[in-house]
């Protein structure tokens, strides 16, 4: 749930968005034109996309329509200077999930990206909880029995992804794809290191290893009914 693609041709704005998303704990890739962005969106498993509309090579709406036609379903927030309502209607009808016009406050973009990812995983609240562990995704704060726990960015991403997929088995490859940016030197062995550190900080019982398949966070019975999960 932690990997985000930003397609923005303005270098300064692109850098700002990437930096803000990185500070908020997301792994990010930046594409500067519609051609590259469209290709990345089709081939890499992103959890959300921030898409500018006025792009070189291929414009944003065309990229979006191609993805949707090809069955690429990740949530997309359009970030554009086109503020007219007919443009917003066009954007949403092309398959966008949200629409934010420039200039914008960075907090608002982060809030909307967060809400989009949360809704895409069927969670109604900004808080994720499993037993004594709670995550406030608005502030990226993790607590154990009400006491704050300090995590690195990678640890946080692994934890949030597993929490989002409570009850499901998540493979190492899937985790790797969602917590690292594209140009990062990936090593699936490091996942084991992160899981080991998380167990140390949050207790052994939270993350279970499913031998030969991957990891799973099993929600306690009372959490199932509270979250409405199976």
């Amino acid at each position: 749930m932690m990997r985000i693609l930003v397609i923005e041709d303005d270098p300064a704005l692109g850098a700002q968005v990437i930096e803000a998303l990185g500070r908020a704990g997301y792994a990010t890739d930046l594409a500067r034109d519609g051609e590259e962005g469209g290709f990345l969106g089709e081939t890499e498993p992103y959890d959300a996309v921030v898409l500018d509309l006025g792009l070189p090579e291929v414009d944003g709406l065309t990229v979006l329509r191609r993805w949707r036609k090809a069955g690429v379903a990740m949530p997309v927030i359009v970030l554009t200077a086109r503020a007219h309502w007919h443009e917003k209607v066009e954007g949403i009808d092309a398959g966008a999930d949200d629409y934010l016009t420039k200039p914008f406050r960075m907090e608002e973009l982060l809030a909307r990206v967060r809400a989009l990812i949360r809704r895409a995983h069927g969670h109604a609240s900004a808080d994720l909880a499993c037993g004594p562990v709670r995550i406030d995704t608005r502030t990226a704060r993790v607590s154990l029995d009400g006491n704050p726990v300090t995590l690195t960015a990678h640890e946080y991403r692994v934890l949030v992804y597993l929490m989002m997929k409570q009850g499901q088995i998540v493979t190492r490859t899937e985790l790797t794809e969602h917590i690292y940016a594209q140009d990062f030197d990936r090593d699936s062995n490091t996942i084991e290191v992160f899981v080991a550190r998380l167990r140390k900080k949050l207790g052994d019982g939270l993350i279970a290893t499913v031998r030969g398949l991957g990891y799973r966070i099993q929600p306690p019975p009372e959490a199932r009914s509270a979250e409405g999960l199976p």
Partner: protein
Amino acid sequence: MRPGYSLRFRLLAGAAVSIALALAVAGVGLSSLFAGHLRERLDLELGNHLDQLAAGLGLDDAGGPVLERPLSDPRFQRPLSGLYWQVAVAGAPVLRSRSLWDVTLALPGDQLPDGVLHRHEAIGPNGVPVIVVERSVQLPGATARFRLAAAESRAAVDRARAEFDRTLGLSLLVLMLVLTLAAALQVAVGLRPLARLRAELAEIRAGRRGSFDAAVPAEVQPLADDLNHLLAHSAEVVGRARVQAGNLAHALKTGLAVIGNEVDGLDAAVAGRIRGRLDDMLRHVNHHLGRARAAAAGGLPGWRTELAPTIAALGRTLASLHAERAPAIVIDCPPALTFAGEQEDLEEILGNLMDNGCKWAAHRVLVSARRAGPGSIVLTVEDDGPGLPAGSEAALLIRGVRLDETVPGSGLGLGIVRDLSALYGGAVEFARSAMGGLMVSVTLPGGV
């Protein structure tokens, strides 16, 4: 430009004048032809009488003329019948028809070679003008030359000519009427393609069509083509201006976004001041771009936009944009209702109103449209939110004024709604909704 007479008037006046001229020339020609014919016949008749007279003349013992056989026409026997003859010797009448009674024909004293006919107008009995044809003959054995004259009253000829002229005049008048009517019909038929062109132009102005496509005659086709080019050109210019305005907006707003994000790291007081200026700049950019767009739209021929699909599309869009609060957007719009304007303007008006409704609604936003009278519709957006503090309605429409700073927005929405409504001669009104929140009604041109 000097206002010209209508084409119909020019063509009709031209046709009427030329018809009248042609018929007048024909009338004068025919009348004089007929008069010539009458005269010729009279001359021929009088010549025949003279021949008969010459053949009937003989000489008495004294060598004077004597009529041996009377002339065949009985009118010579009836006094003052209008047909006369006379024989003169050396200027003095010696024999005359009984019809002349006691009058002699006074003839000019010209010299007549034998056999040549002379024609005169003279005064006959009772002062009636007569036409006289005379010749002189030398009878064998006679010493003197006889001057023979036959005369007939002009009255019959004049009467015949007058009658002919009257009949001719009447016929020509009827002919002129028929020809003028035919010309009027021709003009009407000839000008019909122009009338069709004008009707299409009216439809283009009313927004029911985009170009001329009726079949017109070859002479008018270039005009229709030029008008179509003009329409296409103005649409293209407007389209290009919009694209350029959009590009300008993109560049400026992206720049403003970058500066705004940089400000976040600064001292709070400085950041606040810069942010205030940035907000002002954005308001100016939006306001003037909106006005440029609106001015371009106002100059174009009218359009017609269906309300129901537009409201439905905006409903979909707003449901996505407000997916977190997820207010229920209820639409009540009859399917056939249209707005007499451009779709983008309608979207701008309704989008801003519905967006405000979604921001403030507790659970529900109601969008309704109905006819307000001939050529006018009312769009109403209401919500079940907190509504407005009393007396603050006027401030809502002022550009950049925001009544609540806690809900995101630039405060521009209602100002744009007001500007666009004014462009279409519409009005914006505020009231308390039966649902508890604010109700905004916009009156705009439109209908079924």
